[in-house]
Structure formats: C-alpha cells, structure tokens
C-alpha cells in the first residue's frame, strides 16, 4: 500500500502473503532428513543458512556430536555463501540507484563462488548440502583449486568493484543520510544482522551466542554509527573482508577426519524442544523445533530476518521521494522468499 503527495512518500505499508508456501506446515509432515531440502528455497540467495539453523536444532534434539571437520566445512561454505549474498546486494543496490555496471562486476565474483559451491554440493542455488550430523560429502579437488584461485585475487577484485561506487559523488550523495535507522528503533523493531550493526549495535550471533567453531576463529564485528543507506552498504562490504579472513583461517585450521557423525537410519528424537540461531548475511536465522518422539517434528518455527526488515519500510520511507523508495528498500536487503514462508 503506497500513498504519496507531490512525489513524497506519505505512507507505505508492505502487503505480504503473495509468496506464502506453508513451509512450516510441510515440515510437520516430512521426516527430519527431508525437511532440509524443503527449507532451501526460503531464502534462495543464501540457502546454506536456511539449512544451518534447523540442522543445528535437530542435532540438539538428537544429541549428536558433529565431527569437527564437518563444522569447519560448514563455516567455510557458509562464509562463501555470505560473500555471494553480499555481492548480490552490492549489484542490486547499485542497479536500484541506476548504475548498470556494478551488478555485472559483482556477479563475476558471485559466479565464481557459486561454481565453487556447485563443485561440492552439486547445485548452484539451492545447495541442500548440510545434513543432520555433518555435511553431504567432503571437500573435493575442484572446489579447493577454484577456491585457491579465487582467494588469491578476491580482495583486489572487491576493491575494484567498490571503487566504482565509493568514489562516485553521485552515489555517495544519494546514499548518505538516506533512510536513517536509529539505534532505538532498530532494537525495538527486532532488527538483526548488518542493518542493526550499521546502526551502532555490535550484535553478532557468531560472537554473542557462539556456535559451531566460531569461538576458535579470529574476526572482528564491523560496526557503523550512521544507520543510513551508505553505512548499511559499507558495513556489508566490511563484512565481506572479515569473511575472507575467516575462510583463510578455516583452510589453515581444518582438521582431518570424517564429515558425518554415526547416525541411526531412522531418526526418532526424544520428545523435547530445541532452539538454534545462526548469523546469516541478512541477520538472525533461527529455528525452534518441537519433537513428539516420532520421525517428524511436531512443530517447526522458522524465524527469518527479511520479514522483520521489510516492516522497516513503513518507518523509513515517509518523507522521502519516490525515487528513493527503491534505494532504501534495496539497502535493507530483504529477500521475498524469506518474508513469506
């Protein structure tokens, strides 16, 4: 719903439900292995994170210890997916401001990551790679050679792509001070992820509630205070650099060993509840699983940050010009597949 006066937005209200597929209900009627493939298309840009939190909660239900190599592979592929997602953001953000070149430059980067992930997962978008108790398949030669090739020049490529925007007066003037999200509003609206950190709250689940092998890895949590579109864009680019650091450390510290835990063929967790959250490229992906002792979950609640971030448009848009609606929207980076589950 959209109202404007003389080109200025007066009121804006997102209308949801056009993409609703009832994934949570589907999950109640599938067994635990099957659910993972159903959750992939939720947030198709970063689907590894949609798998990660349910898989973690199922592991808590079943009391499974995941092999350390599998955890490292999860972190490695997850950070690669985070970079791919931020690259997509960079391209679309520039495109929504009218620049046509950055999307193709960032897609060149994203393509390489997607090819890498396709080499181990077999899919380019909906990976379906994480398994309860580990991952589906060890790192292979093609993945490693592609990764090494890419890592040797990733930073330089990123600088080249950002130079096109960061030193561009038109872009900076448009993005600075646009759609300012202050700290209190951000906390009140349950904003997480880069959007929250761009408003000055250094909250990152990888550090606040550590999971997997993140406690063993060294990385910073970039924060910015301005809370405007430019800060949200720059913060994501800072995160890409931190992700590169993490990938480097993963490659150095990764132990040998199995990538799957020993599991019974039919998973029947004891009745109970488990919650898990991961830090995705858009914020907190979390999952609350309830089991009644059968091979299907009794209830699976999925939390997706895009849904909450989309609600911000009603707060940030009024007073801005129509021309800026898409720019603010793009800077919040919601994915519609995650908004309607």
């Amino acid at each position, binding site marked *: 719903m959209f109202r404007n006066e003389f*080109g200025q937005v007066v009121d804006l209200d997102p209308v949801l439900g056009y993409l609703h597929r009832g994934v949570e209900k589907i999950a109640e009627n599938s067994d635990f292995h099957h659910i993972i493939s159903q959750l992939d298309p939720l947030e198709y840009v970063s689907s590894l994170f949609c798998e990660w939190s349910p898989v973690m909660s199922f592991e808590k239900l079943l009391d499974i210890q995941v092999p350390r190599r599998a955890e490292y592979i999860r972190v490695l592929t997850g950070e690669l997916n985070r970079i791919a997602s931020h690259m997509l953001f960079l391209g679309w953000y*520039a*495109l*929504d*401001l*009218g*620049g*046509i*070149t950055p999307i*193709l*430059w960032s897609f*060149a980067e994203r393509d390489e990551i997607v090819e890498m992930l396709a080499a181990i997962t077999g899919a380019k978008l909906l990976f379906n790679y994480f398994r309860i108790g580990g991952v589906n398949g060890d790192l292979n030669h093609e993945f490693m050679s592609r990764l090494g090739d890419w890592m040797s020049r990733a930073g330089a490529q990123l600088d080249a792509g950002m130079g*096109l*925007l960061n030193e*561009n007066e*038109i*872009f900076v*003037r*448009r993005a600075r001070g646009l759609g300012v999200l202050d700290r209190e509003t951000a906390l009140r609206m349950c904003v997480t992820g880069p959007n929250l950190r761009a408003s000055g709250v250094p909250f990152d689940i990888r550090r606040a509630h550590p999971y997997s092998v993140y406690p063993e890895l060294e990385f910073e949590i970039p924060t910015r205070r301005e809370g405007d579109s430019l800060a949200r864009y720059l913060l994501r680019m800072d995160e890409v650099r931190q992700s590169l650091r993490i990938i480097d450390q993963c490659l150095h510290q990764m132990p040998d060993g199995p990538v799957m835990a020993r599991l019974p063929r039919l998973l029947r967790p004891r009745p109970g509840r488990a919650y898990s959250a991961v830090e995705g490229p858009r914020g907190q992906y979390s999952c609350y699983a309830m089991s009644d002792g059968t091979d299907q979950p009794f209830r699976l609640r999925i939390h997706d940050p895009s849904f909450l971030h989309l609600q911000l448009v009603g707060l940030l848009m009024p007073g801005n*010009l*129509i*021309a*800026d*609606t*898409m720019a603010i929207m793009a800077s919040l980076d919601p994915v519609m597949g995650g908004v309607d589950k």
Partner: protein
Amino acid sequence: MAAYWNRLSLGSRAFLVIVPALLVVGAVLTVGIAVLLGPVLDFLGANMPLVRFVAAATAIIVMTIPIAFVIIFMELKVIAAMNLRVGPDRVGPYGTFMSVVHGLKVLAKEDFTPRGVDVPIFTLAPIVVFASIPLTLLVIPFAPGVFGQDFNIALLYFFAIGGMSVVGLMMAGWASFNKYSLLGALRAAAQAISYELPLTLSVVGIIILAGTMSLNSIVQLQAGSLFDWNIWKQPLGFIIFFIAATAEANRTPLDMTEADQELVAGFATEYSGMRFGFFFFAEYVNVFVVSALSVVLFFGGWNAPFDWPFPVTLSLDPGGLGLGLVFLIALAPVVGTIVLGLPFWLLSSRVSTLRALVIGFILFNLLIVGAFLGWAFVSAEWVSGLVWMIGKTFVFVFIFVQMRGTLPRVRVDQLMSFAWKWLLPAALLNIFVTATAVSILANR
C-alpha cells in the same frame, strides 16, 4: 493462349511480364526526359537554394538511420566490454547488424493503442519528438560546404527546435492516460526547462567571442591549430554545456525521464512497436546531435587539430596515358589480386589457390578504396573536414556511452537544485567574465 500461358514456368511468366513492361517504361522515360529535361533543369537552376535545401533535408533524414544504428551498436558493445560481457556477436561480423535487427524487431511488433488514450495526440507525439532531431541537424556544418542551411541565427534556431522535443514528450505523457507516463513527462518538462537555461547561456560566451550565431562562421573562426579552438577560451562554458547537454539528451546520469526503477519507462510506458522505436531512435540521434554541436562550438568543428606536416600535391592526368589507361584498368585488378594473394598461397599449404585469390582480391579492393579515400582526404577539403568532424563527434558519443556504463542516476531534486543553484550562476559568471575580457581587450 491461356493454355499456353499455364504451361509456362514461374520464371518464364515473370520474364514475359517484366521485359515488355521495362521496354514500355524505358520508351516513356526516354521521351519524357527528352521533352521535359530542359524545362525541369531550367526550373531547378532558377531555384538553386530550394533544390539544395530539399537535397540536404533528404540526406539528413536518411543519415539519421545509420547514425542511430552505429550509436546503438556502440552502446551495446562498449557497455558490454565495461560489464565484462561479450555483447552481441551473432548477427553479422562481430554483431554489427544487431542494431538493424533491433530496428526490424521494433518494426514487426504490434503497434498497440490502449483504450482511453487521446488517439490523435498519442499518435502525433513520437512524430513530434522525432521530427525535431533532423531539423536541428540541418544547421550543423559537417565540412566546408557540407551543411543543410547556414543562417545568422543558427544557434538560436538550434535551441528553439531542440526544445520542441519536450512538447512531444509532454504530449506523449499526457495522452497516454497513465500516471507513470504523466510523471515521466512532467519530469521531462521540468528538466528541460531547468537545463535549457544553462545550456543556452553557456554558449553566449562563444557568441560574444565570435560576434555571430552562424555555426559556419563559428567554425571558421576556430581555424588553425589545436590551440585556436574555443575550448581554451571557454573551458567553464564547455563544462556547463556538456552537463546541460547530457540532461537535454536524457542520458545517464541525468536521465530522469526514463528512471525505470521509479517510473516503469517514463513517458514511453504505453507505447509499443515503431512508435516506441521512434522515441529511442530520437534519443540516439539526439546524442549524436549534441556531440556534434559541442564539437562545432568548442572543438573546432571540421578543422584538423594540426596542420598536415608535409604538403601533398598530386598531379594525376589519367587522360595522358591514352590507350595505356585501358590496359591499366583491365590489368591492374588481375595483377594486384595475384601479387597480393601470392604471399598467402606460399605461406601455408592449407590455403587453397582459390582462397588465396579471394584474399588477394579483397586486399586489392581494400587497397584501392584506401588509396582513393586517402587521395580524397588529401585533395578534397570537404572529405578531410567530414572525417575530422565525424571522428571528433564520435569521441563525444563514446564519452556519453561510457558515462552510461559508469554512473548511477541522480535524484530528481538533486538534479533540479544542481541546475538552478550551480549551473545557472556559473553560466552567468561565464558570460560576465567573457564580456569583460572582450571589452577590455577591444579597448586596448
């Protein structure tokens, strides 16, 4: 008779129809020319300016088509290179015919008129937009003697006619019965009014310097070397002119009228088929027009940037060869083909004799065409002028294309405030400084 006709093949039937028809037409033409040629020539000779004008106008309208195609192809290829893409490479060599195919596709599409539109105005709008472009090209001097019309208010005429396209955009937006079209058209009108002022004021400095508005005289006054061009005398004027011209031509970063993230396709939302094609045709030719005008005003027009260091004098007298000329014409292609094909034939056993001959023939033709063009470039002033003018113009077209690949779009209020708060005062300052300098230098 009918039975005999039915037994004939298609080719024979066509032959039997076409040949007598041609004979009749030929006889009529011969008689007609014999009778009418004298009076017609007399009439044309008596109205030379009219003949010249009609010829120039026809040439310019015909010229717009290849110009637009070349610019569209440039845009496809240059932006593709900037975007790490290949761009079109299937149609013709290196995809050169892609823009032709684009044009044919637009022609073949349904020309749809939605319900609720104001039909006469809706139909007329693309024509108005397109018609203003050849009219502006009419006053641009391409080379010594190669121009449509030269009159003493050419620059004023250019801006007046150039402003007419906004009327067309406004008509399109209003008649389309669509809020996005109307918003796009209103933006176009606001933008055109805001940028027409600095655009026109930025060239006043040149008018003061030249003392005339005739584009031909402005170019002639810049004759000499690179340092006689107006860009050195009017750098600020050029910057203002270039920015305002970008807005006038609706190019990125100032293409508010087609902000597709905000306004679907602006004023062209409801258009389809060739009517839509006309808008884009006009846009691309407009890029050429503003580039040509910046070259004429600031970069010396047809003047070469440097003098030819060694004067070439060619004294060819083909008639002096007598019968030898016939032999030359007959033998030169054969000898040239063989001589130029021989190295390829000797170089590799993979090149068959026929292929070597074909290569030699192509090379020979290229050589002759090159020699002919070189001779024309050296000896005919208008050929060299045309080459320099078109070359410089396409440098500017290239800059416009490259800007589109690089820059994001500015916001509509930034666009407006930039025009009124910065460009307009700067243009006024430019006029003031130029006038002061000219009057001081004149009094000394």
